[in-house]
């Protein structure tokens, strides 16, 4: 168990370090001088150079990387060129929108998908299965931002149940905030739920063909009990894998969805920062998202070990 955990942890950390180098390197080779951007086109070369020195941009490359990476570790992300505030404050503010959004979406997707997958697998080939999987097939094909537009049209424009966009902030109490996150979460979650339901169904069907399912039935357990006690846990591994991958999708999905709903979240922040060449913000947010993806993948690896004793005892 410890060997497996250590290996996964080592890989996760190594991936994170490599990823940080990639991010740093990519932004380093980008055209555009941040000092020049901050000071504007009219500044003199001397002024620019002075600011470059102040910002540490003239130091040698490895030193700058270490300085930057060290900053990340101590949560000192630097100052935004365009907003002129510490990046950490920006991130903290935006995270208050994006994190609840992603979590609600993930929860929604899981809550919908797993029961549907179970339902479909246990009624394979029958009408219920066909309808559910037809809906899933359609769900996979729908782009989330178009689905978002349709949701806005129906629930915000027609029915006027929820706001069409914007975010009132958590200051006004949780309810208005949650209400404005509801449609975006649904728009993010449903296409993911469709994928997850399909994976759950096929994983279950695969497992139901295994020899040990026959052994369990030969014990006299009814089909339902076999499904719950023997099939589900074995089918969890592919489901967990997809769940982990979906987290990355959800994070990326927030970029578009936050744009559709005008939500002041991380995705919108990073998108604006990219177009405005606010590199410090881009670096920091990208690193944050990458770290989140790596952490979730590590979590998935750990949950494999919980589900599958073969991984636990590999010594």
């Amino acid at each position, binding site marked *: 168990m410890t060997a497996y955990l250590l290996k996964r942890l080592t890989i996760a950390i190594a991936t994170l370090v490599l990823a940080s180098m990639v991010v740093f390197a990519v932004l380093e080779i980008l055209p555009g001088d941040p000092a020049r951007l901050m000071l504007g086109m009219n500044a003199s070369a001397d002024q620019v150079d002075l600011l470059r020195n102040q910002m540490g941009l003239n130091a040698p490359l490895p030193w700058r990387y270490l300085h930057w990476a060290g900053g990340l570790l101590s949560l000192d992300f630097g100052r935004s060129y365009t907003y002129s505030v510490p990046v950490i404050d920006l991130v903290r503010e935006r995270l208050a929108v994006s994190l609840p959004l992603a979590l609600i979406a993930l929860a929604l997707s899981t809550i919908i998908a797993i029961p549907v997958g179970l339902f479909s697998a246990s009624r394979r080939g029958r009408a219920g299965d066909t309808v559910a999987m037809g809906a899933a097939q359609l769900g996979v094909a729908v782009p989330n931002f178009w689905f978002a537009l349709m949701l806005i049209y129906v629930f915000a424009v027609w029915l006027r149940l929820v706001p069409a966009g914007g975010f009132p902030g958590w200051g006004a109490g949780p309810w208005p905030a949650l209400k404005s996150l509801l449609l975006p979460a649904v728009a993010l979650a449903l296409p993911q739920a469709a994928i997850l339901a399909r994976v759950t169904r096929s994983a279950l069907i695969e497992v139901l063909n295994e020899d040990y399912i026959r*052994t369990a039935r030969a*014990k006299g*357990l*009814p089909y339902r009990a076999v499904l719950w006690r023997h099939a589900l846990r074995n089918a969890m591994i592919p489901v967990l894998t997809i769940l982990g991958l979906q987290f990355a999708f959800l994070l990326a999905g927030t970029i578009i969805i936050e744009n559709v709903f005008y939500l002041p979240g991380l995705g919108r922040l990073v998108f604006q920062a990219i177009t405005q060449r606010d590199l410090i913000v881009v670096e920091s947010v990208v690193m944050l998202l990458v770290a989140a993806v790596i952490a979730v993948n590590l979590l998935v690896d750990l949950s494999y070990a919980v589900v599958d*004793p073969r991984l636990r*005892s590999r*010594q």
Partner: protein
Amino acid sequence: MSLLDIENLSLTIGDTPILRGMELSVAPGEVMGLVGESGSGKSMTALTVMQLLPHAARATGRVSFDGIDILAATEDQMCALRGDDIGMVFQEPMTALNPVKTIGEQVAEGIRWHTRASRAAAEERARKMLDRVGLPSAKFPLSRYPHELSGGQRQRVVIAIACALKPKLLIADEPTTALDVVLQAQILDLLRDLVAESRMGLLLISHDLAVVTEMADRITILRHGEVMEAGDTARTLSQQLHPYTRQLAQASMHVPARARPHGAGSGQPLLQVEGVTRDYPGRRSSLFKRAPDIRAVNDVSLSMAPGQSVALVGRSGCGKSTLARMILALDRPSSGTIRFRGETVTGKNEAELKPARRDMQVVFQDPYGSFDPRQKVEKLVAEPLHVLDKKPTRAERREMVAHALHEVGLDQRDMDKYPHEFSGGQRQRLSIARAIITRPKLVVADEPVSALDVSIRAQILDLFAELNQKLGIAYLFITHDLTVARAITDEVLVMHDGKIVERGKTNEVLDHPQSEAAKVLVTAAPDLHRAIARRMQEQG
């Protein structure tokens, strides 16, 4: 009154008829052997009794168990029967247990379900049951997972599950086919004892006539879904009244006709293996520690003369396949040298190996897995021609393939077919055609007949013998089956734990084994002659 009565049972799956007018009965405490070649419908008979058939299956006729009409029973009634009154043991122990549940859970589960016992009580019974099947709780606590057990141990767990509630009928479908002979003997002993202890009826399904003869009171012989002959085991097999029974029995004991074996010692040996050892690195247990290396082959030396036929026998995992791979230069020894026709092959690269490869070919066990399904026979059989210095033209190549096919008894028109158009026996012929197309001096055959039905097996053994005589090819047969060794080889090497522990003339070693490992193998090997003789003796 019979415990299980099958009358006029017919079964179809989709449009395919599986069973026709099947009749069979098992009395309490009786062992009924159901014998047949692959596709005869014997497993489907078992699944019909359990009502675990595929969805498309339709059964007609009458199956009654303990007065219950099985074909008319509801799923709830069947659930009550399965695992309580009828237990079943399957062929494949490696996959028959749920990998994420402990063996304790899996044995106790059926007990709890049927008796509504408390967890503690059920676990107590499970512990006793595991103890009974030879897995004492000191060494095999209930918290073990299946992957921590070997194949034989897992089969014991499956038997514990099936017998936990002392069923009236136990169905064992090829329970030992996936195990080596020694484990097979142990598992059969266990089944025999369990049946005797609680007067269970046992329906033993097997393709192996010798196994069934050793175990069964009565025997039913099935072919293409129809019962050929049924009756008392000893009488049926000694009289062999039905032609199919005779055919099966003769095929099981078949020894190919061979002229005098080639004399060893004349001139240079063909193959010399000197002090060969193969270590596999142990699994990493933590970042800095590794388990000790596993020594699969330990200081093995042997030598073969041209044209000689040698058997390398041993239990599964003894290192015989690893040794064969090193001889074929598909794996590298950790130390030692292998010489082929006097030239060292160890440590050479693929280009330097070409001349050796030309004279050294291989036949594998699985007639289905050993051909790329995407290529035609012509290309597959011609594959070894790759090592020739002068590449044959297309016409020459077709000529050579046609000749090789002819030699193994296939039609030359077969070369434009795909492998799936052939039966298992025909594929093994293809496999041999591929092996002899370069006119090799040595063919290494890894369990070449163990996946085949007995009648096909006899034909393939004949083919091997014929080619040995005609082409002077030397064979190294890797096998755990002593009847194969006896049938076709001059010399035998017995391997155990990576070492060769005994060697000598085949008949001498098999009749008078000296080493412990050889003795165990010989005693455990099922032998139809011996089994019939014992049955006759018992009945006087």
